[in-house]
């Protein structure tokens, strides 16, 4: 829950530790789990807001927002259904939000980026499911400059971590192991390095690591030193590619004065420092929101609704659309400038 200035009054997220409750089921597929936990999470946020803001009652809400896509339909239907019901009962607008747009606008949360994040800026969204460069030209105006043609960056980290026998989540475990290794020890490919545009490809890099491991004698266990060298070499390859691709993306967007890195992979310190260096060399600022705001979260969804409501106030009001269906596919390019009416 956010106030009109983007200050977070209360927030809750179903914690990673809670995943055990699902008995190994991937949480986002479980619409039933959304159904089970979401009402309680909403109640908790309302209760916490009343503590943060004495005198607050739910009737004070001016709008309710929920992600309506893109993603797996079950969870989206449950989440947006709860949001719609709450909005309807309070007689306030429901704002359907594209959660990729929410990632794109997170940097604009007041106080997050020193000096603010005025449009236009370049967003690098790198997570388990996403790897793309987005030109954030303005509210509702986004251009996908490039993205992965196969695996997402976080997926590559997770799969290589799995190949190295590391636990879940793979990315942070691989980063820790890489600290002990030599990033120049093992030659690995740099897919698409130097290629025009800013597309990414990680499948071949993952395969190269798999083949490196498959080529070892079967009776010889992977020692820690070798695993660390592979981890460090893999991370260096990803960093080289990402730096190169983002340099190209900034070249495609000369009007940008800010590079924002979001998504779980942006928490990787090696990547972060490389991206900061690329930004610095091109004379643009660099910012990466904290991890809790980089992964999927409700704060960014509420903030996006505030941005849209503000724009709507200018354009003549938001019509809360109670009938907008959840969308498993929802390209950012289809974000209409008209608030509250996607697609």
């Amino acid at each position: 829950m956010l106030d009109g200035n983007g200050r977070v009054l209360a927030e809750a997220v179903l914690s990673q530790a809670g995943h055990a409750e699902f008995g190994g089921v991937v949480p986002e597929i479980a619409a039933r789990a959304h159904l089970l936990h979401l009402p309680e999470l909403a109640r908790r946020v309302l209760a916490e807001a009343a503590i943060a803001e004495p005198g607050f009652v739910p009737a004070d809400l001016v709008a309710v927002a929920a992600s309506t896509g893109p993603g797996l339909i079950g969870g989206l239907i449950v989440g947006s259904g709860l949001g719609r019901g709450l909005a309807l009962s309070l007689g306030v607008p429901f704002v359907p939000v594209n959660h990729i747009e929410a990632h794109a606008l997170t940097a604009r949360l007041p106080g997050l980026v020193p000096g603010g994040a005025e449009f236009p800026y370049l967003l690098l969204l790198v997570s388990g499911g996403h790897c793309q460069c987005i030109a954030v030209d303005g509210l509702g105006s986004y251009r996908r400059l490039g993205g992965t043609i196969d695996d997402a960056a976080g997926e590559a980290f997770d799969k290589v971590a799995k190949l190295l026998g590391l636990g879940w989540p793979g990315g942070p475990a691989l980063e820790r192991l890489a600290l002990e290794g030599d990033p120049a020890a093992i030659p690995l490919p740099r897919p698409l390095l130097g290629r025009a545009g800013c597309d990414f490809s990680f499948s071949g890099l993952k395969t190269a690591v798999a083949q490196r491991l498959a080529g070892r004698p079967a009776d010889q266990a992977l020692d820690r030193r070798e695993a660390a060298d592979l981890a460090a070499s893999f991370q260096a390859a990803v960093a080289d590619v990402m730096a190169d691709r983002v340099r190209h993306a900034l070249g495609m967007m000369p009007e940008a004065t800010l590079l924002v890195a979001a998504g779980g992979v942006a928490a990787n310190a090696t990547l972060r420092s490389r991206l900061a260096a690329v930004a610095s060399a091109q004379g643009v600022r660099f910012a990466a929101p904290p991890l809790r705001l980089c992964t999927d979260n409700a704060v960014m969804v509420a903030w996006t609704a505030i941005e849209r409501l503000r724009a709507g106030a200018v354009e003549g009001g938001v019509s809360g659309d109670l009938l907008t269906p959840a969308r498993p596919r929802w390209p950012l390019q289809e974000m209409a400038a008209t608030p509250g009416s996607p697609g």
Partner: protein
Amino acid sequence: MSEADSGTVELLLARLADTEALGRRVAGLLRPGDSVLLEGPLGAGKSTLARALLRALCRDPAMEVPSPTFTLVQEYESPLGPVSHFDLWRLDGPAGLPELGWEEAREGVVLVEWPDRLQSLRPDDALAIGLAPVVDDADGRLARISGWPGRRDALLALPPGAPAG
């Protein structure tokens, strides 16, 4: 090509282009209700084959085929109707499949990576393609093909490296 056992044929795919050509050949023989299961370790070429198959099926050689690992399933529209590309790597069993729309997806074409997670839901009439890397050969793959007895000859009529018909 060699008969490994009565139901399985082994095929050497020497180059990446051969893996892609096999995907295109499968695409040319698909019917609604078919399931294609892609087996093999990480990096074996399952996604490469899937990408070629989906692009051929949707008649769009440049179509984006993102990895379905994190979304678990990606859906496409093809002249044959809906095609669902599942990646069950993150699942440890079939419990989540109903919520992923497995039953509805089966009415169209399903393409499944990591099909061992299907367990009891594994379709009996599936075409199964197992891919394995070839030692000391970065691009070579060994494909083990089983299922589709009625369409096997058509599938293997030409070497997979030949231009797709």
